[in-house]
């Protein structure tokens, strides 16, 4: 397999070209956004809850194929799940889903969306925000 095919797997390209959960919720229960100042990737997420369950997630953003595809995959991974459980979601679970080798620089791209989601859950549900997300050296969240 060529280097291209390894990183830009068919499924990544599919999520990049046809992102799932793309857009903004009109009446969200929680909102957050994040940036990777190094490369300028930006992602904002709106969330809706049904009780403690995440009933809908939408994201918008600008950035590389990896950051956008990873966030698209993330939306599929979390809809219908318990907010507290998703707040604890280990990043390995998302990385497994992405399923490609990532250099340290690209890893930050892949995890930006997950960080924004955790910040949104923290704001909307008061779930704990692990330190790696609350004070990341490379990513900034609002």
């Amino acid at each position, binding site marked *: 397999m060529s280097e291209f095919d390894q990183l*830009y797997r068919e499924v990544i390209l599919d999520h990049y070209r046809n992102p799932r959960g793309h857009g903004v919720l009109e009446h969200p229960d929680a909102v957050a956004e994040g940036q990777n100042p190094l490369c300028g990737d930006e992602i904002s997420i709106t969330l809706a809850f049904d009780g403690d369950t995440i009933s809908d997630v939408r994201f918008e953003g600008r950035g590389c194929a990896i950051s956008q595809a990873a966030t698209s995959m993330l939306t599929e991974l979390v809809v219908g799940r318990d907010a507290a459980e998703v707040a604890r979601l280990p990043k390995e679970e998302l990385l497994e889903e992405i399923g490609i080798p990532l250099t340290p620089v690209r890893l930050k791209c892949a995890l930006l969306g997950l960080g924004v989601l955790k910040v949104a859950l923290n704001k909307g549900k008061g779930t704990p925000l692990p330190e790696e997300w609350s004070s990341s050296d490379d990513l900034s969240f609002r």
Partner: protein
Amino acid sequence: MAVTAIAKLDAERLRADFPYLEELQNGVPVAFLDSAASSQKPRQVLDAMTDFYSHSYANVHRGVYRLAERATDAYEGARVKVAEFVNAPSEREVIFTRQATEALNLVAYAWGLDNLGPGDLVVVSELEHHSNFVPWQYIAGRTGAEFRTIPIDEAGELQLEVLAGIAAEGQVKVVATGLVSNTLGTVNPVEKLTAWAHEQGAIMVVDAAQAAPHRPIDVQALGCDFLAISAHKMCGPSGVGALWGRRELLEQMSPFNLGGHMIRTVTAVETTWGQLPYKFEAGTGPIAEAVGFGAAIDYLSSIGLDAIERHEHELTEYALTRLAELDWIETYGPPVARRAGIVSFNVDGIHPHDVCQILDWEGVAIRGGHHCTQPLMHRLGVIATNRASFYLYTVPEEIDRLVAGLEKVKKSLG
């Protein structure tokens, strides 16, 4: 015989001086198009440093033994080379720093803290590298001075029409701009800005980090008051740079860093400062790095800065022509006549990270990101750009490989 002809540079021959350019990746050398971030190093510089470390290394100054004397001579010899390189009136006006960034911080702190206050204006440009932007913004904030930026036009050139309006807003005390923009390659009209700064009674600070590797620098012709450079962008080692400053100003200024080496006498009651340039060189300096810096200057001078400038001009013209053939590429920056060897561009709908990643697999190294110029990215309305930059060892085939790589990017992700 006419002496005005500029010798043509033989890049193929010069490439043999650079060990990295002989290395192969997947059977071919990497097309290294990121010299604006830092240049590769020729053997002449590496050998000079190894030789110095092997045979002449000791701490400089105050040593009585011969080895320390040799080390001091080499270190001070490098200072003379830097002084000649920028045509400084005296080597006492050349201060070794860690890089251009530290040189600019030195001026911002040591001049700015004592001379700026409410009602004063500090003026930089929208093109600036963060290293000539953030220190001024910060020191202006600390002293109560106002911070202003000179905007650029669509081509990435400074809009000098706004200067009169800026002058009307307060007392302009500092004008700080780059000579060459590291993102767009724009060559700024520093002589004009200097004239304007001096009319206002302001000092003119020039960031020449991106100019010194590529064109002759003459501080007396520019007329500026301070000028900053970094060795690592000009075939020298990382860890050393220089500030040139006008003697009267340096003499009036308070020190920046304090400690050993920069003093005359120290008692519990009072400490007095050393002479220029030592007043601004606290602690053990970048000794071997300075020697490498000197060797890099010798190397560049032996080729000729005029020849380097012309070579890069031709490459830039070629690159702009080739990229203009691709209608899915947007390039930024001024026409080639007023641009150094830097081309920033975006590929329609594809983020620079993806562009650079795919180019890497094709053996082409360029940089994607904000290039430490976030205000400029904001002005251009982009989050990042791709940047290809050229140097004395760049050959046109490398630009062909860039273009072929971009075709591949477009085919794969477009």
